[in-house]
């Protein structure tokens, strides 16, 4: 069997170029590195939002991309929950509809996360009827996390998910994310700058050094 994360790709975007190689059996892989190192770009490549120039991406034995084999699964069939650095909520939908967005595409998948549990744990019950433009930064990010979980993904990518949360919420969420990891066996890649967060969340830390230009 191959590793949980089996990634070897060369990324290109504008004049940014970099080669990333990851071979790891970690449940939660933390990704750190200076600003501009390519952390977001790597997540996008895994999610199918950025096509690598070449290489191979496999997660939990599933090949998502392989330039040699001409495999390139479209994003919507990769079953990857992505919590973006900016929340990217749908402005035309209320919070409840944002949370429910992924449900209709996940009907035939094992439901790991129940709507009410997720809402309770993220403390977003009072927001359900709200419009997304009215949310504060942290509120929006909590909804975005909930939305990703409720799409019942096989892999969760978190791009600095707690950066805009206050310390109390942060403390509250970390154990939940840990539980998600342990109970569901869901692989996760966790991008963060906060050493403490990384320590508590991840088995393995991958530091992307500054990109060679």
């Amino acid at each position, binding site marked *: 069997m191959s590793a949980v994360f089996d990634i070897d790709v060369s990324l290109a975007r504008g004049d940014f170029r970099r080669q990333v190689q990851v071979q790891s059996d970690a449940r939660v892989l933390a990704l750190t590195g200076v600003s501009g190192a390519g952390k977001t770009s790597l997540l996008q490549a895994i*999610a*199918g*939002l950025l096509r690598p120039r070449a290489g191979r991406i496999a997660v939990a034995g599933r090949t998502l991309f392989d330039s040699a084999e001409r495999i390139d699964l*479209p*994003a*919507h*069939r*990769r*079953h*990857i*929950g*992505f919590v*973006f650095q*900016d929340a*990217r909520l*749908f*402005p*035309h939908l209320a919070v409840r509809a944002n949370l429910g*967005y*992924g449900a209709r*595409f*996940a009907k035939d998948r094992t439901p790991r996360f129940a709507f009410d549990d997720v809402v309770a744990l993220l403390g977003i019950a009072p927001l359900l009827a709200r*419009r997304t*433009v009215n949310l504060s930064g942290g509120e929006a990010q909590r909804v975005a996390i909930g*939305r*990703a979980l409720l*799409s019942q993904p096989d892999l969760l990518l978190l791009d600095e998910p707690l950066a805009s949360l206050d310390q109390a919420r942060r403390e509250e969420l970390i154990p939940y994310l840990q539980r998600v990891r342990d109970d569901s066996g869901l692989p996760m890649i966790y991008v963060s700058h906060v050493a403490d967060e990384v320590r508590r969340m991840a088995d393995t830390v991958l530091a992307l050094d500054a990109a060679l230009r």
Partner: protein
Amino acid sequence: MTLSPGELEAIALSLKVALVAAFASLPFGIAAGWLLARARFPGKSVLDALVHLPLVLPPVVIGYALLVTFGARGSVGMWLQQTFGITLAFKWTGAALASAIMGFPLLVRAIRLAFEAIDPKLEQAAATLGANAPWRFVTVSLPLAWPGIVAGLVLAFAKALGEFGATITFVSAIPGETQTLSAAIYGLMQVPGGEDAIWRLAIVAIAISFAAILASEWLARRQRGRREA
């Protein structure tokens, strides 16, 4: 202000023709607007130019081209007649077709601008949540483009009300069948002293379009309200 039965007939016909023209061309307008905003394909500029044609040429030329193509003796017209039993020549359906074509550039441009203004990152987010391209289109792009679509509809509807050059060349002016408000107004312009009747009908046309604009503002505000208020 009283209106004669003939005038009322023209008004009702105009409403029917303009509504059918605007709504029937909507799917095509959305398709063309989307293609021009998002797709990359060879001949895109040609499609763009084609969409603009009805603006560039005098309406009578468009009307003549329609007659040659969709008339009872026209190639497409004969085919439509034989295959589907659809007659456009001298029918109100022909008037609707002419109005739709004349309003098409306006419809497409408004919709295109709306699609161009949508942040592709939202469509990406939808993709990671499992939505395939058609679903992303229906659940994200289309609702976000809604104000532009409404704007395009109003333009197309207004244009259809005012259209008569292409219409009369294609289907002539048959009272009750193809003589719309605009055609009636134009007819009145040809006789000395028709001014009273002209202004009476013009006011009706203005009132209809004013109602359409108010309705569209309301629709757009409701949507915007949903997002911002």
